[in-house]
């Protein structure tokens, strides 16, 4: 008898054949009719010819050739990946201890306070947060004023309109998304496992390294993947804090749509999707192999 043997089907098959399309149909038709149609038009446009002022429906694939031969786009891709890797790295280094610290709080009021501190910025728009970082990091802003007052610097330090500024603000925007998956896995971990390790004579460091850390790996992995993908898709933060000096794919896509160069924008969009989906696919594969390796050892 299989695992589902005990369950009886909820409705007669005939009723299901009538009701199910009615339930799922509207959502599926909506996605096909708007999202997939739009993506289809984008895909077709990627092959078209751009005269310099307008798009001609002539299949030339020249935007692809341009994208893959002009070294400018290689540097944009490099910038894109570098921003995502650096941001994800910092988010994990900061986010893991933060999630771990929250699990160590005993008083309910302090737990609520910690949740508010870490997650409440999600309630404000990314534009408000980017503007906040401009106020803090700009030439006449708070940090430069404080540094000058303390006589630590002679002239203002350049903290915005460069890679540093974008990274500081992007870590701020994405940190809640890093903390959440780690925190939920840590909270789900059975506390008796740690107690058992301690009873068997393990030190706190050993308990962490041999019990807590390996068990939290799925959360760490989910956090890394989510943060990385969100960093690659970021538009508002690089636009407002990059000052045109941090060129990433999302910025180019908007720029080229505005310049009416839709074929190039479409190729960049396809490149972004390919980059994001490949990352997700490969990391899923690596994760599964790693889990299998852990399983074999036991």
């Amino acid at each position, binding site marked *: 008898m299989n695992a589902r043997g005990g369950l009886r089907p909820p409705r007669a098959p005939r009723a299901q054949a009538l009701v199910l399309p009615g339930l799922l149909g509207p959502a599926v038709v909506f*996605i096909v009719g708007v999202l997939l149609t739009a993506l289809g038009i984008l895909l077709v446009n990627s092959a078209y010819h751009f005269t310099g002022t307008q798009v001609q429906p002539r299949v030339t694939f020249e935007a692809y050739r341009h994208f893959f031969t002009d070294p400018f786009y290689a540097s944009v891709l490099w910038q894109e990946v570098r921003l995502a890797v650096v941001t994800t790295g910092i988010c994990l280094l900061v986010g893991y201890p933060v999630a771990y610290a929250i699990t160590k709080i005993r008083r309910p009021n302090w737990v609520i306070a910690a949740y508010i501190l870490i997650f409440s910025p999600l309630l404000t728009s990314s534009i408000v947060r980017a*503007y906040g970082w401009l106020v803090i990091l700009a030439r006449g802003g708070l940090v430069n004023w404080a540094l000058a007052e303390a006589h630590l610097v002679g002239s203002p330090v350049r903290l915005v309109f460069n890679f540093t500024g974008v990274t500081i603000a992007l870590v701020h925007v994405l940190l809640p998304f890093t903390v959440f998956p780690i925190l939920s896995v840590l909270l789900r971990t059975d506390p008796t496992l740690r107690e058992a390790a301690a009873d068997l004579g393990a030190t706190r460091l050993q308990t962490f390294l041999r019990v807590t850390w390996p068990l939290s790996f799925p959360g760490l992995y989910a956090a890394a993947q989510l943060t990385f993908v969100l960093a690659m898709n970021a538009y508002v933060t690089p636009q407002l804090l990059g000052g045109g000096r941090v060129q990433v794919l999302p910025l180019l896509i908007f720029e080229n749509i505005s310049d009416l160069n839709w074929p190039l924008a479409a190729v960049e969009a396809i490149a972004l999707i390919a980059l994001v989906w490949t990352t997700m696919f490969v990391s899923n594969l690596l994760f599964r192999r790693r889990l299998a390796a852990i399983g074999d050892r036991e």
Partner: protein
Amino acid sequence: MSGSRDPITIALWAFLGLVGLYMLAPLIFVTIDSFNPSTYGTFPLAGVTLHWYQNVLQVPEFRSGLVNSLIVASGATVVAVALGTLAAYGLARYRFRQRELVRSFLLLPIIVPAIVFGAALFLLYIRVGLYGTRTGLVLGHALLGLPFVMSITTASLQTLGREYEEAAMDLGANPLVTFFKVTIPSIRPGLVVSALFAFVTSWDQVEVSLFITRPRNNTLPIAMFNYEQNYQDPTLAAISAILIGFAVVLVLVAVSILKSQEYRKLVERE
């Protein structure tokens, strides 16, 4: 208890406090900057002014953006909740071979990068006359909310189980009556959360809106985004401070609900 007072734990809490400050810093300094008399928002403040708050009322884009955002977010929420709940019911209550495929398919709107979705929608909308319209915005935002509604509602339907529905039908209620009188009321908390998600998704949306709004027909985030790129005076800090104020009120309400006696009883009963 004494074990939690060792140096490592205290160091961890100190780190948590520092990160908390980092998380709040931009919100605090935006609020301070909204009273800054200097047009360039320089520190330290040379005084205190309410000028930028008056200015917020005088920027017509903010007022029309606010109205537009409220209408679009409400419309998108209604569409996303209606379609998402129907789909969730189908996914949670029926077993069929392509179920996982359909579920993944319904997640597509959030798997496609928002900026790509925006560019694609623009190319579609200029062909069908939806570019720069409220309907276009509602449809785009509803698509983005749909996966959240579908996931949250499917989860609450699965936790609920189908015993109550079966009991209602055994007592003679037809499927439609059962759905509206038993299923919907039982999953109300899940529906409220998913509606909130859909609303906030639309309310804060930038990347998709950017492509499909006209200058005359902006949402509030787009009006703020454009203002930021053109002026950069503390008017933006003032409107941000107002929005932060709303968020603070929301947090306080949520905390008071969490700590209220009725909620405690509700949680303990379950």
